């Protein structure tokens, strides 16, 4: 028997109130432990896809099954329990800037605490020790008492990774994690993301602009265009023709 997919999406649709059809029926199975990269130009629906999975956006139609549970429609306590298992990494890092680095990692524990004790910041000793450990792992142990906005972009994104891992996430959704970073920082962040999720056996879906990074790290690559999947395959199957189809004739959009 084959392994069950950790995430199974069928005919996922999302139409925004202004009429934009961001997703026009996306179907995809993600296997446990996979490092999946989605490529496609801006506006292709990559971000919307990730946000529908953890219900930051409410999907308009289709079915999402996570770990054998139908999560197409969840709310309240069930949604909280789902979200804590799904780590999210954002293009703009989205650290709470006025909190310390370590507390930003600890925010990953909020899903496991009551709303009140979370609001008061009553993290357990184990949580604190784990947060320090995670920061050391992404090379930021020394920075833990600094305010988050004193870190560089690349450092902030590494804190973002630590926050997602602190959730004990089984699936990490990374939305353009390196789009705002310079090449060197991009390298570091992608390497950490790949390494940490491999070590912890965490499934990862990463949206990327940059095809070269996708080829370097992905187990499988998904091409998204105008809200539909137009390509699924191994990195070596991504030919120039595939890229042209995804990004249009102009090659210059590729290495944006």
């Amino acid at each position, binding site marked *: 028997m084959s392994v069950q997919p950790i995430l199974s999406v069928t005919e996922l649709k999302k139409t925004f109130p202004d009429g934009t059809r961001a997703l026009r029926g996306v179907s995809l199975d993600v296997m446990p432990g996979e490092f999946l990269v989605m490529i496609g130009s801006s506006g292709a629906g990559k971000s919307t896809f990730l946000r529908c999975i953890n219900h930051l956006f409410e999907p308009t139609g289709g079915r999402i099954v996570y770990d054998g549970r139908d999560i197409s429609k969840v709310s309240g306590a069930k949604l*909280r329990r789902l*979200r804590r298992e799904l780590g999210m990494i*954002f293009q703009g890092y*989205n*650290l709470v800037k006025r909190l310390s680095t370590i507390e930003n990692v600890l925010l990953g524990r909020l899903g496991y605490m*009551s*709303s009140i004790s979370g*609001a008061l910041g009553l993290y357990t000793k184990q949580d604190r020790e784990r947060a320090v450990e995670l920061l050391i792992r992404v090379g930021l142990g020394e920075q833990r008492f600094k305010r988050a906005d004193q870190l560089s972009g690349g450092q902030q994104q590494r804190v973002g990774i630590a926050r997602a891992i602190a959730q004990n996430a089984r699936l990490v959704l990374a939305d353009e994690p390196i789009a705002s970073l310079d090449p060197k920082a991009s390298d570091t962040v992608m390497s950490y993301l790949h390494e940490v999720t491999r070590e912890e056996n965490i499934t990862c879906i990463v949206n990327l602009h940059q095809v070269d990074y996708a080829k370097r790290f992905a187990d499988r690559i998904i091409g998204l265009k105008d809200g539909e999947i137009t390509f699924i395959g191994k990195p070596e199957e991504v030919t120039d023709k595939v890229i042209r189809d995804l990004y249009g004739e102009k090659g210059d959009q590729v290495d944006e």
Partner: protein
Amino acid sequence: MSDGVLEYTRKNAIRRRRIARLIIFGFTVAVLVSAHGTGFRIRDLYRGIPNIIQFLTEDLLPPRFSVWRRFLGPTLETIAMSYAGTFLSVVFAAPLGFLAARNVSPYPIVMQIARATAVFMRTIPPIVWALLLVSIVGIGPFAGTIALGLSGAGMLIKSYADSIEDIDAGQIEAVRATGAGTFAVMMKGVVPQFSPSFVSWSLYRFDLNIRSAAVVGLVGAGGLGFSLSTAVRLFRYQEAAVAILWILGLILAIEFVTAKLRGHLI
């Protein structure tokens, strides 16, 4: 072709000039009508000049500095009123500010109610609140404190809500995505971003309350304003002058202190 453009712009210029003339004419008429309505006459103002000079030099000045100690108590009372009033406003406005902010309010109807409450409390000036409250709870600083608290809360609800609406939605989204409960999202995602403007607005309100405290005092709601109005009513203008100096000094001092505090806290 270019003739057409010239003709068109010329007509436009004439039209603009005509509108400008109409507006100036309108303003002039309005000034004359309101002057007539309020019985304003240059002649009276002119004839009043000797009176004004006499009042200033003989009645009001020099201030009778020997009574300065008499205003020490009322000054402290004014500060206490302002502080307690600010405290009331902040306690009342902090939760309502969250409910009135579009991006964090749980339901649109709650937001509307919170905003309406703010408008109601804010549009009634402190002195009107004070007049009402003096007749309810009697003359004294208690009425003044509540008056300041109510009108201040109105302003703070709106200021807090506007500041909360300006914060970075991404940071809230990230906290929400961890599975945090609503209250935890507020305290960890919203409050850290909001706290500088919270401090800033609250201090500013304290600043304004010092001025308002002097005004509400005039209708009997305690503090320096009450001492001032008493002195005027007893025709002790030289003592009133000392009260005015006290008010002036107090306002400047508090403004200095709050500015320093704001610089340190933010």
